[in-house]
């Protein structure tokens, strides 16, 4: 096996750090993202340990406040926003549309280095005072706190540019570089999801950049955009912040939904129950998602009419997620379902996403939100969506495309085991937090009344199971990277376009003109010209 792939074409360090190959840039992102996940996870574990007892356990209140802020900032902007689009989107989108690369390869490399620059700035802020505002940076607290607000916020500002450039690149690539004969309705649904995500990235991120700059001016030069003591309006900040940060939720979850569509079809060996419903609902989420930001502010001081309107619009946006869940589930019907690691992660996704989504609808039922707002209920709700949704989809993607990216296969048995551990650990960590929220425990509380301790202990125990599952995953994937057996080009027998070239792909993605003659979800007849390669699959199991 010495055929030229994107991995062995050139192997110098320079050929990696200055690459314009979308696949290598995707790998660079992936490595950086895993580093961010570990760092953000470290803070999460520390926070959970602190909550084992009320009052002081292992850290001071100030350390606690800085830790939850860094946990949030790292997980949101350095892990989740770029997670699937920047890594798997970069790697797969050009292949899926039959292109040799993205539309602007050098811009793609620039966006990676902007991402690194912003990340370094956020990390530097950790050492020059930290930040203690929470990842939402609400003024006037953020206008007056003496911590390293400018460094961290400008870091996020720079990361924003990286997000915009990546989004722009994907939009242009999807429009202009689709292979001849590849119409929109024949695109893999992952492309639809990444495309809809990119639209949000391009349209919403500038608002975040602007609002963060204003906070930096408030904080360091004592301007008064959001500080009432200087004539500013703190609620205006919240409107602008959530105008970005609510659509950002769909930046985080839509790519995960794209992964789920791919995995479900491949492991059920069946066409999706409704391709159009899944494709269009991505746009529904992207569009209506822009109109619901006010549901973060039901108790912030808003007119009753506005609050009601945001409540209704939030109900409408939820329906698009419901459509997807329904169509994924019914795709299994009449299929040939093989419960392998990626599909097990997708099942975890389905369960957690339904639970997280329905509790999201519950907090949009406005009188309930009054009790739940800013309590652990909300913490549990968004972790069900962000971790239960985005992280499980990210893990599903890693396991599904691992043979595509590396050409090797991991241990299926360990894969299933760790997926089960991740699911169980996650559930035990975050389910008690719904109950804590019901009981009224506010979020971002360093100290808490002693009656909440039992639930906190259960939650902390769950976080250890979750961490164990992720550690096992890291070990067997690390092992498979160097020692895993060869997977073959298409170990899952998928019909989707990225599997119609060698694994790992050559530098220019395809050896010959790629075949885009069939529907990527057509399992009614054998794949023309190839075998479904059952050998590799048996070996893997």
């Amino acid at each position, binding site marked *: 096996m010495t055929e030229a792939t994107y991995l062995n074409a050139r192997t110098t360090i320079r050929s990696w750090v200055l690459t314009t190959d979308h696949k290598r840039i995707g790998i660079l992102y992936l490595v950086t993202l895993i580093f961010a996940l570990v760092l953000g996870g470290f803070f999460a574990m520390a926070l959970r340990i602190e909550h084992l007892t009320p009052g002081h356990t292992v850290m001071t*209140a*100030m350390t606690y*406040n800085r830790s939850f802020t860094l946990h949030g900032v790292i997980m949101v902007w350095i892990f989740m926003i770029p997670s699937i689009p920047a890594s798997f989107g970069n790697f797969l989108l050009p292949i899926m549309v039959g292109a040799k690369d993205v539309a602007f390869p050098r811009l793609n490399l620039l966006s990676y280095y902007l991402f690194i620059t912003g990340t370094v700035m956020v990390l530097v802020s950790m050492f020059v005072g930290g930040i*203690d*505002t929470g990842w939402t940076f*609400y003024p*006037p*607290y953020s206008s007056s706190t003496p911590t390293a607000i400018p460094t961290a916020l400008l870091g996020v500002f720079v990361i924003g540019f990286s997000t915009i450039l990546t989004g722009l690149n994907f939009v242009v690539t999807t429009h202009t570089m689709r292979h001849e004969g590849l119409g929109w309705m024949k695109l893999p649904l992952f492309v639809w999801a990444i495309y809809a995500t990119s639209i949000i990235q391009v349209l919403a991120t500038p608002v975040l950049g602007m609002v963060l700059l204003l906070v930096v001016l408030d904080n360091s030069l004592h301007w008064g955009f959001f500080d*009432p003591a200087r*004539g500013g309006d*703190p*609620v205006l900040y919240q409107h602008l912040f959530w105008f970005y940060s609510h659509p950002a939720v769909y930046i985080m979850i839509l790519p995960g939904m794209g992964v789920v569509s791919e995995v479900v079809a491949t492991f059920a*060996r*069946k*066409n999706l*129950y*409704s391709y159009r*419903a899944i494709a269009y609902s991505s746009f529904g989420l992207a569009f209506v998602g822009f109109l619901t930001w006010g549901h973060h502010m039901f*108790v912030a*001081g808003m007119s*009753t009419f506005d609050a009601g309107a945001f*409540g*209704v619009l939030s*109900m409408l946006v939820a*329906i698009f997620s*419901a*459509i997807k869940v*329904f169509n994924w*589930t019914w795709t*299994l*019907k*009449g299929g*040939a*379902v*093989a*419960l392998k690691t990626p599909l097990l992660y997708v*099942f975890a996704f389905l*369960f957690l996403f*339904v*639970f997280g989504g*329905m509790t999201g*609808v*519950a907090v949009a*039922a*406005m*009188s*309930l939100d*009054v*009790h739940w707002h*800013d309590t652990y209920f909300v913490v549990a709700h968004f972790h069900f969506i962000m971790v239960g949704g985005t992280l499980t989809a990210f893990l599903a993607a890693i396991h599904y495309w691992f043979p595509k990216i590396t050409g090797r296969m991991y241990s299926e048995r360990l894969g299933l085991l760790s997926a089960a551990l991740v699911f169980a650990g996650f559930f035990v960590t975050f389910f008690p937090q719904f109950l804590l929220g019901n*009981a*009224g425990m*506010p979020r*971002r509380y*360093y100290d808490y009344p002693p009656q909440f301790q039992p639930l906190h202990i259960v939650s902390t125990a769950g976080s250890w199971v979750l961490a164990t599952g992720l550690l096992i995953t890291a070990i067997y994937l690390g092992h498979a990277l160097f020692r895993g057996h060869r997977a073959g080009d298409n170990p899952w*027998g998928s019909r989707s376009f990225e599997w119609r070239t060698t694994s790992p792909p050559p530098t220019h993605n395809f050896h010959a003109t790629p075949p885009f003659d069939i529907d990527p979800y057509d*399992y*009614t007849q*054998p794949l023309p010209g190839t075998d479904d390669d059952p050998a590799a*699959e048996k070996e893997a199991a």
Partner: protein
Amino acid sequence: MIELFRRLIFLPVGASTVADGVDALHAFVITATMLVSTYVFGAAAWFTVRYRRKSDRQLTRRLSATVRHEASIITLVLGTFLLWWVLGFRQYVEMVQPPRDSDVVYVEAKQWMWKFTYPDGRDTNDVLTVPVGRPIRLAMTSRDVIHSFYVPSFRIKQDVLPGRYTAVWFEATQTGTFPIWCAEYCGVSHSRMRGEVVVLSQADYALWLRSGKGQTAEIDCGRGPGSCGGGDLVAIGRQVALRRACVACHTLDGQRHVGPTWSGLYGSQRTLADGRKVVADDAYLTRSMMEPAADVVAGYAQVMPTYQGSLTAAETGALVELIRSLRDGPVAPAGVALPALEITTAADGGRGP
């Protein structure tokens, strides 16, 4: 039934008039969520077993959604969501609109304590004492950053902002002590910013009111002890209005002057110079002091300067309370003095036109 549900999902006691309704909706939503999750996951599990793969080259038939199937699911799900919204919104409207006859307590939040000022002029820190069975409206502002007033047992929460007044109301249905927690992150001791609501029976509350009489003759409204003189908030409001020369432009007896009169102003509908109509509530009055140009009443010139940063929170509250006491005309009604209990508070004699 509702008590069992509360215990099952760790809800605290429901001690306000809105709690039962909110918890009933909660029960409805949670039960439906459980059913839907079970249904989706049950279906996925059943399909996985029933249609398990038999061969790696197995082919499947094309099976696609009918429009009818998709539409019926969408209708069912959206219908349920909208029903929840209708129920939730109705309760929300009830929660944000205090009854007209509510008693008022002024709340000032700061890092990291709650200060409560009662209509009779006294104030307390971190302990809010109220009678059972009376609607209480809290007019709240913050001296520094955003806080959030949260009483889990009452199912109420409202952010408290610097530079403006927000309101929340409740009517306690049982006596007892209920925790107040700050729910908006406000700095290093955020989690220690706790207080409590003490709900007394009406008889005990009357005693409490009497016991406190005369103890707070000197009010500190942010300019040193005694800077606002004594008496109830209305009386303090009068002193502030005199000292800051509000009365140079605004009359208290209904006569038109440079600015609109304060008599009958509170709660009335105002037509603005740009044609908008607004109700003169606490928020409007506060905004008019801080940003006079924002809502100019039709027929008046905009000549008023801003009082942003020059009126303290306590002074602003006292002025609003004074204007509120004039809602039904130049003679202050007994509204601020808890008529249900027939208790008169200090400085009543001083309320002339």
